[in-house]
Structures are given as C-alpha cells and as structure tokens.
C-alpha cells in the first residue's frame, strides 16, 4: 500500500514522466488493444460493460477498481472466481499493455503507465492450468 501511495505521489509530482506515454501517436493502435480483443472481450464484452446472467461478469468500463494498477495486475495474474489466471498464457508485457489499455479506455482515464516490471513486482506467480 505504501508502495502504491509512493508511486502515485511520484506520478503526481513528476507529470513529465507520464507525458511521453500519453502523447503516443494517435493513429497507432494501443499495444493492449489486440490482447483485449482476443482475450478479455470473450467475457468482459467489446464495450467492456460485462454482463449478468446467473452470475455477473464485471464491467471494466468506468471501473474505479482500476485506479491503482496493482489490483487489476493481481486479478489478471492470479484469477478471481470463474476467471482463470493469465500469467503464463500472456507475457508480463502483454498483461501490462492490456491493463494500460483498459485503464485509459472505456470511460476510464487513469494516469500512469503500467509496466512489465510492475507485473513482476505485484503479480501472482505463474500457476499451471493442469486440467482442461
């Protein structure tokens, strides 16, 4: 938690560090877009609004749990409920990219770049998906 706060303070205090990432070529697709489309949207939907049946698929659109990257990193690497873990299936860079993508799209406007190093630091260790 302290680590999280420190990172925030750093990001707030040194906006210049974030600027290059935000000012990327507008035409180039976000590196996380493909991962979102080919993996996440199978459940969370193309509009990231999730869905509800007998159970619920979390909406990622306008989701305040994405404010700090640590939380989505723990979910994507460690899984939650029906959602399997994706560490080992996706590279740490892909995980960082897609979390960065979701945090800056679908009505989310969270600042701060998500890096593979952050996935290494905060992610759950690789687990096997032995059966099925």
């Amino acid at each position: 938690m302290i680590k999280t706060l420190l990172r925030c303070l750093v990001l707030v205090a040194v906006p210049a560090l974030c600027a290059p990432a935000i000012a990327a070529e507008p035409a180039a697709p976000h590196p996380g877009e493909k991962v979102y489309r080919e993996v996440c949207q199978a459940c969370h939907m193309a509009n990231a609004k999730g869905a509800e049946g007998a159970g619920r698929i979390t909406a990622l659109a306008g989701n305040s749990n994405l404010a700090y990257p640590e939380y989505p990193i723990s979910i994507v690497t460690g899984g939650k409920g029906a959602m399997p873990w994706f560490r080992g299936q996706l590279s740490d860079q892909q995980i960082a990219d897609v979390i960065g993508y979701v945090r800056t799209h679908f009505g989310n406007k969270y600042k701060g770049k998500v890096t593979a190093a952050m996935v290494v630091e905060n992610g759950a260790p690789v687990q096997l998906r032995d059966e099925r």
Partner: protein
Amino acid sequence: MALIDTGVQAPTRRELLHAIGVMGGASLLYQAMESMGHAAESQFKGPPNLQGARPGASVLVLGAGLAGMLAAIELRKAGYKVEILEYNNRPGGRNWSLYGGDTYTELGGAVQQVGFAKGNYLNPGAWRIPYHHRTILHYCKAFGVALEPFMQLNHQALVHNSKAFGGKPQRYRELAADWDGNVAELLAKAIDNKGLDSELRAEDRDRLKEALRDWGLLDKNMRYSKGLRSSRRRGYDRPLGGGVDAEPIASTPFAFGDLLDARIGGIVAQHMENQHQTTMFQPVGGMGMIGKAFGKQVEGLIRYGAKVTKIDQSGGAVTATYTDIASGETRTAKADYCVCTIPLGILSQIEVDASPGLLAAIAAVPYSNSVKVGLEMKTRFWEDDEAIYGGISYTDQPIAQISYPSGGLHSAGPGVILGAYTFGPASYKFAGMAPEERVRTALEMGAVFHPGRYKEQFSNGVAVAWSRVPFTLGCCAQWNEATRKEHYQTLCAVDDRIVLAGEHASYVGCWMEGALLSSLDAITRLHTRALEA
C-alpha cells in the same frame, strides 16, 4: 523398461483368473479382477439404493443439471421431500442440444435463432460418452434414452497442418499407417545397429523384429516401402476391383519428415486416450435427450427461471433466496438439507452461509473456456463425395477440429458439422467475436478440408461460446495439482447441511460421468449425515 525377465515361470494373469473363476464362480472372479486392477474402469457400483429417510425430511436441490436431477431422483426414492431450483427454463444444464426453431441469447445480449432442419442439432456441451462411463450409461438405459455409436476415430477423415504437405489435408489412414511403418522401420534399424542390445536379450530382439514386421507392414528387408503390403493399410492408388482392371496399384508412402511436420503423433494419441477409445456413444437425436429424460423423472419438482442469490443455513434448516426471473419477485425455498450443484464461478458470487474453508474452495477454482460452432450443410457431401461417415478431422487452425455427424449416417438431406471445438487461447479469440463472426470464421477455416463444397453447401450456423453462457460463465472447473491438494476434499465435504455436487466435485472433470459420480457420492454422505442428526 527392460524386458528381460527374472526366469521365474509365474502363471500369467489370465491363467490365474481362469483358475479362480473355475474354483469360485463369477463373483469371486470379479473381486479378484478388481483387486488385480482389471474391471476397474469405473467407480460406479450401481444406484445407491438409499433408504429410510426420517419422516418429513426435505432436501433442496440447486441446479437441474444432471448432478442435481440425479440427486433429486435418488433422494426422493429414499423418502425425502425434494424441490429443485433451476436458473434456465429447461432441465439438463450443460447437457444441451440446440435444434431448429430454438432461440439462444448469450451474455452480452447477442441472440441466435437456430435455423437447422428438423432433427438436426448442435451439442454445445457434452457430445460423446465413453463405454466405461457406466453411470451415465446405466441411467440412459434406466430412463429410456436411445443411444447410437459415436464415431471418434475415422481413418477416412483428414488431418490438416498448415506447416506440412503444403497445407494440403491428408487422410488419417495414410498418415497413421506411415507413422507406424516408419517407427517400426526405425526401431528395427536400431536393433540392427545394436542400439537395443543393453535392453533386450538376443531372442527378444528377434521376436520384437518379427512383431515390428507385422505391426509396421515392413517388407522382407525390414523396410517400410511402397508396395501392395504397405498399401493394405494406407490404401491403393488403384484399389482392388473386378474384371480386367481388377489388379490394385500400390500407393506411395509419405516421407517421415512430412509426418513429423504434420505432428501426426499427437493426432494419433488423441484417439488413444481411454476417454476416446472404442466404443463411444451418443443419444439418438442429440445429447439433450438425456437432460430431457432426467427432467421427465423429476417432473413437477423443478422451479424454473429461479436465480439463487443467497444460501443460508442458520436455524436448523437451509434457506435459499432466489429471484423469480419472470416476475422479478424475491422468494425463498426452505428444506432440511441442500445439494448445491451451481457452477463454482457463479456460486462464488452468491452469499453462502458456509465454513471459511468451503468458501475458499468455491472461490479457488477457475473455469475453462471453449467454443463450439454448428454448421448446417445442404447435403452430406463428406459422405457422398468422400466416404467420411462420422469422425473428426483435425487442423492446427484455431477451430482445432471439425466433426461429421455420427447420427443419420448415409441418409439424404442436410447435416450439421461441428465446425469448431476450440481449446486454450483460440477459445478466447472466438468467444470475443459476435456469433455470426464465429460462424463465418469457422466456415472459412473449415473450408480447407473440403474446398469447393464447404462454403458452397453451407446453409446456416450457430455458435456457443462458453465464457458467455449465462448459466455457467465458463465451460468446466479447471483444477490443478495445487488447488486439488488444498481445496478438493473441503469442496466435497458436507458443510453442516449443505453438500456440493457436479463435475467440479469429481476427478472426471468436464464429463457427465463426473457430475453423476459426484452426485451419488454427495447424496450418500448427506443421507448418512441426515440419519445421524
């Protein structure tokens, strides 16, 4: 793995079993076979025959899939008053067929109207039954579900690998024959090169070579070569006929390197798994026939369209709170005990009054994903043109395989091909597409097997992505060694008045057999608990 024996002439198993059979009769023979590891292909010991429920005792069953309905059937026989709550408006759960005229709405809201001709179907979930799944076979017979053979292995089906044979699909028969032939030849060479001298005695080396000659159809020089001998298995360029041109012409085996490129070893292994061995079955008219037959047994006991939101077990009873989907009303159902078969991904989102250990177990198991696509073709061209009757053609494309219908073989008229059965990353890729895009993509990829026919004969399709199935949020429970060790026993244990059942509470995961075995075991333990109370 040395084959050198110890010189002791022990009786063979068969000799021993024969002697026991003669002396002790069939039941002793069976016992002996069981203790020797034979006849132990199933843990099914027959219906549980539970008896003597306390007067007035009741059980609430959550979920009208096969596990839930079997629990209801057997507990009612034991004397319990039973009620079932089910989210869907039909019995069966993942035992399910989509027929022409059906409407299916997936999570996210996409609606598909199934346009299949009468009698045709797609089995989105379970689709085949191994011969050793004795529980499902027992209840199919008991409930009058007609079965027919399911063609798993078809030598005439195709194998496609984009990195082999210039991307041209080849017959399984030719590839498998050449695989065995080449491996036999290599092994024979290894023997001749003294590569197996440390493993085998001279006489066993000779016997193995003799066996390799038969197994691999090797010629007199112990080579797998072009000729009528190898063609007997892989097929001929001109097959045996009658009259003047009757003489066959041999076909040419593939180069071994091409077989390795096609990864034929892995395809051959698919069919070798015990779960895929001969004989396999399917219900006549679609897998959903089983769910319907079970549903008939519990007619009047199921409350459909009930979405469970809370399970409480305080005050000496189990109370489930649910939303009646049709009216939107919140209601409750109460009983002395509860068999809960709700898939774990959904159950983990429901407020459950249970021990921390059980709650942790429920939350610990993620669900796999898979996509199945049904493609209806105007004619059964794979039968008419290519003599493919049922079976599976494999590809390294994301659709993984296509399967030809095992029902209605050699009939006229439209047939439904299973156009995709995806695994791993491909499942997510496919599930993320809109249903019509899944159908279009499956059609495009599957066309590699039957160019000029596949797309041309296509009439309509339907696609089910399990991650978007409203009543499961996934395909099957995905255990691993670590989660099994930490949570499995806790997941299965009776938790005060509640016991869980379903494929997720079994080691036969993702099979109907697992759901049923789990159910029988769970209700047997729950009944014991109820009598001890």
